[in-house]
């Protein structure tokens, strides 16, 4: 266990950035999102949740897959180079880190997504414990411990100090790189902080949310055919906010961009809330917003767990609770089914 | 008449007049109150400029007989404004003689709103002598 005074954070970042690309929560006109660090950005480690989850450090909102260039009637194709430089994502929360585990089960199983895999290999996670969990948080419902986030290095912000605890080999390596700035310390203060976080988590409004009737054991068709969906979806605007702020949503679309002299094929996040999601030549297999709305939550709470040994593809970060323009969210879905006898 | 090119251009520049627009109607001469005293008549100013014969214009009596009353400018149907041409010719003569007591850019400061333009023109003439 090491520590560093907050005053020296800038030096720490600077040192990390010498050998790695560095992503930190950055505030732009009040909105905090992960972004590349440089000396001019306004780092914000106090805001609990970034608007977007940090998943796009590993799975960017859009990325080029390959480029075609045209020369007369000839085409040449250049695949995009895979990520080859180490990068550090500093300040991911327990839920965000767990979100990657959800993505891993999608992108790292056969067929492996090489773009994602390369980023996972080169990505070093410095996770930050949540000293002040907020009302929309319910990570504990999915067995996540906000006081002890996974990652390569765990850090704690306590008072004027940041405590640094390398967990993995990658973490050790990073620690070596920045050791000059770190001081040795014991774990007493960190243990105190953990207890304090746990106490707050127990008082969270959603901490007792029950997942009974969902997950691996859910009766799929009962849930699918439930009339409750009809009532739930109506305010939905069909925007993509919930999916784009979510740390676990992994759907993407592949599109071509005509640059004039060729084409860049890129992929970008898609949202199952959109009417043209999975649009095919014959049309769309989900024709109503109710079906699209149902898809999102069935996927998070039923399909994904049933395909992945009971692992939910929700980590309880509560971003959808905070950001839905019409006040809809996964908690309301779970509660509605609970009220309706879970069918 | 090779001497004239620059001067003719200068006259066009100073006056802002395109003498090619003249359709030779003679309304300027018909209007001019100083017609009888002029050796070169207002409608001829245009031809002299067109023919680059600025020397003759400069040596003419007309140059100093023009009252700058602007009747020809007012009446000209083609926007040719012989009055402006003669005025420009006058300026050229004055400048050449180096008797330019006032520099053009000093004038605006000396102007007041009530001062008639004609006075200014005749002032130029008077100071030359």
């Amino acid at each position, binding site marked *: 266990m090491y520590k560093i005074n907050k005053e020296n954070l800038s030096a720490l970042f600077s040192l990390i950035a010498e050998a790695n690309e560095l992503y930190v929560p950055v505030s732009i006109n009040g909105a905090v999102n992960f972004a590349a660090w440089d000396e001019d950005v306004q780092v914000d480690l106090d805001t609990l949740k970034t608007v977007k989850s940090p998943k796009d450090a590993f799975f960017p909102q859009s990325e080029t897959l390959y480029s075609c260039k045209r020369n007369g009637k000839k085409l040449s194709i250049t695949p995009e180079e895979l990520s080859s430089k180490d990068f550090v994502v500093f300040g991911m929360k327990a839920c965000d880190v767990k979100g990657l585990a959800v993505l891993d089960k999608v992108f790292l199983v056969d067929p492996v997504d090489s773009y994602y895999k390369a980023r996972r290999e080169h990505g070093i996670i410095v996770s930050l414990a949540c000293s002040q969990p907020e009302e929309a948080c319910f990570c504990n419902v999915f067995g996540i411990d906000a006081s002890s986030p996974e990652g390569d290095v765990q850090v704690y912000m306590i008072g004027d100090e940041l405590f640094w605890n390398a967990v993995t080999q990658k973490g050790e390596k990073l620690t070596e790189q920045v050791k000059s700035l770190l001081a040795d310390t014991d774990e007493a203060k960190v243990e105190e902080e953990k207890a304090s976080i746990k106490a707050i988590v127990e008082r969270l409004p959603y901490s007792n949310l029950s997942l009974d009737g969902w997950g691996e054991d859910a009766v799929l068709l009962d849930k699918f055919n439930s009339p409750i969906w009809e009532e739930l979806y109506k305010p939905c605007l069909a925007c993509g906010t919930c999916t784009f702020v979510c740390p676990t949503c992994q759907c993407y679309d592949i599109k071509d*961009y005509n*640059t*004039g002299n060729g084409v*860049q094929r890129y992929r970008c996040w898609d949202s199952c809330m959109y009417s043209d999601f999975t649009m095919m030549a014959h049309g769309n297999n989900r024709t109503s917003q109710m079906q699209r709305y149902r898809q999102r939550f069935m996927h998070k709470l039923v399909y994904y767990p049933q395909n992945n040994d009971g692992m939910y593809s929700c980590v309880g970060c509560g971003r959808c609770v905070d950001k839905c323009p019409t006040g809809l969210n996964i908690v309301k879905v779970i509660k509605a089914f609970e009220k309706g006898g879970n069918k | 008449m090779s001497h004239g090119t620059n001067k003719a251009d200068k006259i066009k520049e100073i006056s802002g007049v395109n003498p090619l627009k003249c359709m030779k109607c003679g309304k300027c001469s018909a209007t001019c109150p100083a017609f009888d005293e002029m050796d070169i008549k207002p409608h001829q100013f245009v031809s002299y400029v067109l023919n680059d014969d600025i020397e003759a214009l400069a040596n003419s009596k007309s140059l100093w007989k023009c009252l700058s009353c602007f009747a020809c400018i007012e009446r000209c149907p083609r926007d040719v404004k012989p009055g402006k041409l003669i005025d420009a010719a006058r300026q050229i003569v004055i400048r050449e003689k180096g008797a330019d007591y006032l520099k053009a850019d000093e004038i605006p400061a000396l102007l007041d709103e009530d001062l008639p333009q004609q006075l200014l023109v005749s002032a130029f003439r008077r100071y030359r002598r």
Partner: protein
Amino acid sequence: MSMNNEFRPKIVAFCCNWCSYAGADLAGSSRLQYPADVKIIRVPCSCRVNPMFILRAFEKGADGVIMCGCHPGDCHYSTGNYYARRRMTLLFSMLEYLGIENGRTRVEWVSAAEGVKFSTTMNEFVDKIRSLGENVRLGDLRCKD
């Protein structure tokens, strides 16, 4: 000309079929020169010009976009250019508001008889764009390579 490194802007000119395109034809038959940087797209009427076309041109690398139509009152379709005038006024104002140099867009009314005006306008516009330099504020970087 293209041998030296002089900036050669890409300029798109939308011309209505009835007046401005014919005006451009007249400029041509009168042999009135204007730079080859200007490329004309024929549209039936200035009211056919969608703001999306103009943004698209910038997206794909244009440095300036000019729209020409019949003089107000002379529209072949009687009212098209009046609508176009409002649309372009608002669009240009918005571009200026977003910090895009406001000389990059222009509207000029050119009749079929105004070949001279057409070529003068194009010369002026090209000069303006050359003085503004390459368009970096409104374009898609992917189209630059």
